Protein backbone atom coordinates (compact mmCIF):
# COMPACT_ATOMS: atom_id res chain seq x y z
CA UNK A 1 0.00 0.00 0.00
CA UNK A 2 0.94 3.64 -0.33
CA UNK A 3 1.83 5.58 2.83
CA UNK A 4 2.65 9.25 3.00
CA UNK A 5 5.35 9.96 5.57
CA UNK A 6 5.80 13.38 7.16
CA UNK A 7 8.80 14.05 9.38
CA UNK A 8 9.70 16.84 11.82
CA UNK A 9 12.77 17.78 13.82
CA UNK A 10 15.57 15.25 13.81
CA UNK A 11 13.29 12.76 11.99
CA UNK A 12 13.38 15.09 9.00
CA UNK A 13 17.20 15.01 9.08
CA UNK A 14 17.25 11.20 9.33
CA UNK A 15 14.75 10.78 6.51
CA UNK A 16 16.53 13.44 4.47
CA UNK A 17 13.25 15.14 3.62
CA UNK A 18 10.09 16.55 5.18
CA UNK A 19 7.67 14.40 3.19
CA UNK A 20 7.89 11.23 1.14
CA UNK A 21 5.59 8.57 -0.24
CA UNK A 22 6.49 4.92 0.21
CA UNK A 23 5.11 1.69 -1.23
CA UNK A 24 5.00 -1.08 1.35
CA UNK A 25 4.02 -4.75 1.41
CA UNK A 26 3.51 -6.73 4.61
CA UNK A 27 2.89 -3.67 6.70
CA UNK A 28 -0.45 -3.74 8.47
CA UNK A 29 -0.16 -1.40 11.41
CA UNK A 30 1.99 1.36 12.90
CA UNK A 31 4.13 -1.17 14.78
CA UNK A 32 5.12 -2.75 11.46
CA UNK A 33 5.86 0.66 9.97
CA UNK A 34 8.04 1.64 12.93
CA UNK A 35 10.02 -1.58 12.49
CA UNK A 36 10.46 -0.85 8.80
CA UNK A 37 11.62 2.71 9.53
CA UNK A 38 14.19 1.50 12.06
CA UNK A 39 15.57 -1.03 9.57
CA UNK A 40 15.73 1.36 6.62
CA UNK A 41 17.04 4.27 8.72
CA UNK A 42 18.97 2.81 11.68
CA UNK A 43 19.45 6.32 13.15
CA UNK A 44 15.84 6.13 14.35
CA UNK A 45 16.97 3.42 16.78
CA UNK A 46 19.32 5.86 18.46
CA UNK A 47 16.56 8.28 19.46
CA UNK A 48 15.25 8.58 23.00
CA UNK A 49 11.79 7.72 21.69
CA UNK A 50 9.88 7.44 18.42
CA UNK A 51 6.14 8.03 18.12
CA UNK A 52 3.83 8.02 15.15
CA UNK A 53 0.74 10.14 14.63
CA UNK A 54 -2.21 9.71 12.30
CA UNK A 55 -5.11 12.15 12.11
CA UNK A 56 -3.20 14.69 14.19
CA UNK A 57 -3.04 12.41 17.25
CA UNK A 58 -0.63 9.89 18.75
CA UNK A 59 -1.60 6.34 17.81
CA UNK A 60 -0.56 2.99 19.26
CA UNK A 61 1.47 0.31 17.49
CA UNK A 62 -1.67 -1.69 16.73
CA UNK A 63 -3.28 1.17 14.84
CA UNK A 64 -4.28 -0.35 11.47
CA UNK A 65 -2.92 1.35 8.38
CA UNK A 66 -4.87 1.96 5.19
CA UNK A 67 -3.46 2.92 1.85
CA UNK A 68 -3.10 6.70 1.37
CA UNK A 69 -2.79 7.25 5.15
CA UNK A 70 -0.56 10.11 6.23
CA UNK A 71 1.75 9.11 9.06
CA UNK A 72 3.67 11.77 10.93
CA UNK A 73 6.97 10.76 12.54
CA UNK A 74 7.32 12.37 15.98
CA UNK A 75 10.85 12.25 17.41
CA UNK A 76 11.41 13.26 21.09
CA UNK A 77 9.66 16.61 21.59
CA UNK A 78 11.46 19.57 23.18
CA UNK A 79 9.04 22.48 23.27
CA UNK A 80 8.59 24.89 26.16
Amino acid at each position, binding site marked *: MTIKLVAYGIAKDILGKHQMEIQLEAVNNLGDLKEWLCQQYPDFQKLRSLSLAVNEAYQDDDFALNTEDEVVIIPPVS*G*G
Partner: protein
Amino acid sequence: MLDIQIHSTPLDTQTCIDFTSHPNAGGNTVFVGTVREFTKGKKVLRLEFESYEPMAIKEMTKIAKLAEEKWSTLAISIHHRVGVLSIGELAVVIAVSTPHRKASFEACEFMIDTLKETVPIWKKEIFEDGEVWVAAHP
Protein backbone atom coordinates in the same frame (compact mmCIF):
# COMPACT_ATOMS: atom_id res chain seq x y z
CA MET B 1 -12.06 29.69 28.81
CA LEU B 2 -9.08 28.60 26.78
CA ASP B 3 -6.72 30.57 24.56
CA ILE B 4 -4.23 28.31 22.78
CA GLN B 5 -1.96 29.81 20.14
CA ILE B 6 1.26 29.25 18.20
CA HIS B 7 3.08 32.37 17.03
CA SER B 8 5.99 32.96 14.70
CA THR B 9 6.38 36.48 16.12
CA PRO B 10 7.44 37.52 19.67
CA LEU B 11 5.11 36.52 22.51
CA ASP B 12 3.54 39.03 24.86
CA THR B 13 3.14 37.97 28.49
CA GLN B 14 0.61 40.65 29.29
CA THR B 15 -1.74 39.40 26.56
CA CYS B 16 -1.85 35.99 28.25
CA ILE B 17 -2.34 37.49 31.71
CA ASP B 18 -5.10 39.76 30.45
CA PHE B 19 -6.92 36.79 28.93
CA THR B 20 -6.93 35.01 32.29
CA SER B 21 -8.01 37.97 34.40
CA HIS B 22 -11.38 37.14 35.91
CA PRO B 23 -13.53 38.73 38.63
CA ASN B 24 -13.45 35.54 40.72
CA ALA B 25 -9.71 34.97 40.35
CA GLY B 26 -7.76 35.02 43.59
CA GLY B 27 -4.62 33.62 42.07
CA ASN B 28 -3.05 33.96 38.70
CA THR B 29 0.16 32.08 37.96
CA VAL B 30 2.19 32.66 34.83
CA PHE B 31 5.11 30.61 33.59
CA VAL B 32 7.45 32.17 31.07
CA GLY B 33 9.98 29.93 29.34
CA THR B 34 12.92 31.81 27.89
CA VAL B 35 15.82 30.89 25.69
CA ARG B 36 18.93 30.27 27.77
CA GLU B 37 22.38 31.43 26.80
CA PHE B 38 24.31 28.33 27.84
CA THR B 39 23.65 24.59 27.62
CA LYS B 40 26.13 22.47 29.53
CA GLY B 41 28.58 25.34 29.40
CA LYS B 42 28.34 25.80 25.64
CA LYS B 43 27.25 29.17 24.33
CA VAL B 44 24.01 29.04 22.35
CA LEU B 45 23.86 31.53 19.46
CA ARG B 46 20.18 31.12 18.69
CA LEU B 47 17.38 28.57 18.67
CA GLU B 48 14.94 27.29 16.14
CA PHE B 49 11.56 25.93 17.12
CA GLU B 50 9.61 23.82 14.68
CA SER B 51 6.07 22.56 15.29
CA TYR B 52 3.61 20.16 13.76
CA GLU B 53 1.12 22.93 14.22
CA PRO B 54 -2.38 21.40 14.00
CA MET B 55 -1.43 18.56 16.33
CA ALA B 56 0.50 20.90 18.66
CA ILE B 57 -2.63 23.03 19.05
CA LYS B 58 -4.70 19.89 19.72
CA GLU B 59 -2.24 18.57 22.32
CA MET B 60 -1.99 21.94 24.10
CA THR B 61 -5.79 22.16 24.15
CA LYS B 62 -5.93 18.65 25.62
CA ILE B 63 -3.51 19.70 28.38
CA ALA B 64 -5.50 22.86 29.12
CA LYS B 65 -8.76 20.87 29.33
CA LEU B 66 -7.18 18.38 31.73
CA ALA B 67 -6.05 21.26 33.94
CA GLU B 68 -9.45 22.93 33.67
CA GLU B 69 -11.16 19.76 34.85
CA LYS B 70 -8.74 18.89 37.63
CA TRP B 71 -8.24 22.36 39.16
CA SER B 72 -11.50 24.10 38.12
CA THR B 73 -9.48 26.83 36.47
CA LEU B 74 -11.25 30.01 35.41
CA ALA B 75 -9.14 30.73 32.34
CA ILE B 76 -6.01 29.38 30.67
CA SER B 77 -3.81 30.98 28.02
CA ILE B 78 -0.95 29.08 26.35
CA HIS B 79 1.13 30.79 23.67
CA HIS B 80 4.07 28.98 22.11
CA ARG B 81 6.63 30.57 19.82
CA VAL B 82 8.10 28.95 16.71
CA GLY B 83 10.80 30.01 14.26
CA VAL B 84 14.18 31.52 15.03
CA LEU B 85 14.65 32.90 18.56
CA SER B 86 17.48 34.91 20.08
CA ILE B 87 18.76 34.50 23.63
CA GLY B 88 16.30 35.90 26.16
CA GLU B 89 13.28 35.69 23.89
CA LEU B 90 10.14 33.98 25.13
CA ALA B 91 9.57 30.42 23.95
CA VAL B 92 6.34 29.81 25.84
CA VAL B 93 3.92 31.64 28.12
CA ILE B 94 1.35 29.77 30.21
CA ALA B 95 -1.09 31.80 32.30
CA VAL B 96 -3.84 30.36 34.48
CA SER B 97 -6.31 31.84 36.93
CA THR B 98 -8.11 30.05 39.74
CA PRO B 99 -10.24 31.22 42.69
CA HIS B 100 -7.49 30.24 45.14
CA ARG B 101 -3.79 30.43 44.61
CA LYS B 102 -2.49 26.94 45.35
CA ALA B 103 -4.47 25.53 42.43
CA SER B 104 -2.99 28.07 40.03
CA PHE B 105 0.58 26.96 40.87
CA GLU B 106 -0.30 23.29 40.53
CA ALA B 107 -2.19 23.76 37.28
CA CYS B 108 0.55 25.93 35.76
CA GLU B 109 3.33 23.51 36.67
CA PHE B 110 1.29 20.53 35.39
CA MET B 111 0.76 22.28 32.05
CA ILE B 112 4.39 23.20 31.38
CA ASP B 113 5.59 19.76 32.53
CA THR B 114 3.09 17.98 30.26
CA LEU B 115 3.67 20.35 27.35
CA LYS B 116 7.34 19.45 27.39
CA GLU B 117 6.45 15.75 27.23
CA THR B 118 3.68 15.57 24.66
CA VAL B 119 3.37 18.62 22.42
CA PRO B 120 4.97 18.09 18.98
CA ILE B 121 7.35 21.04 19.02
CA TRP B 122 11.09 20.64 18.51
CA LYS B 123 13.92 22.88 19.58
CA LYS B 124 17.27 23.06 17.81
CA GLU B 125 20.17 24.79 19.55
CA ILE B 126 22.69 26.44 17.27
CA PHE B 127 26.25 26.75 18.60
CA GLU B 128 29.31 28.25 16.99
CA ASP B 129 30.55 24.83 15.97
CA GLY B 130 27.34 23.02 15.13
CA GLU B 131 23.73 22.44 16.02
CA VAL B 132 21.71 19.86 17.93
CA TRP B 133 18.06 18.86 18.26
CA VAL B 134 17.48 19.17 22.00
CA ALA B 135 16.75 15.94 23.93
CA ALA B 136 16.57 13.82 20.78
CA HIS B 137 19.06 11.26 22.05
CA PRO B 138 19.25 9.48 25.42
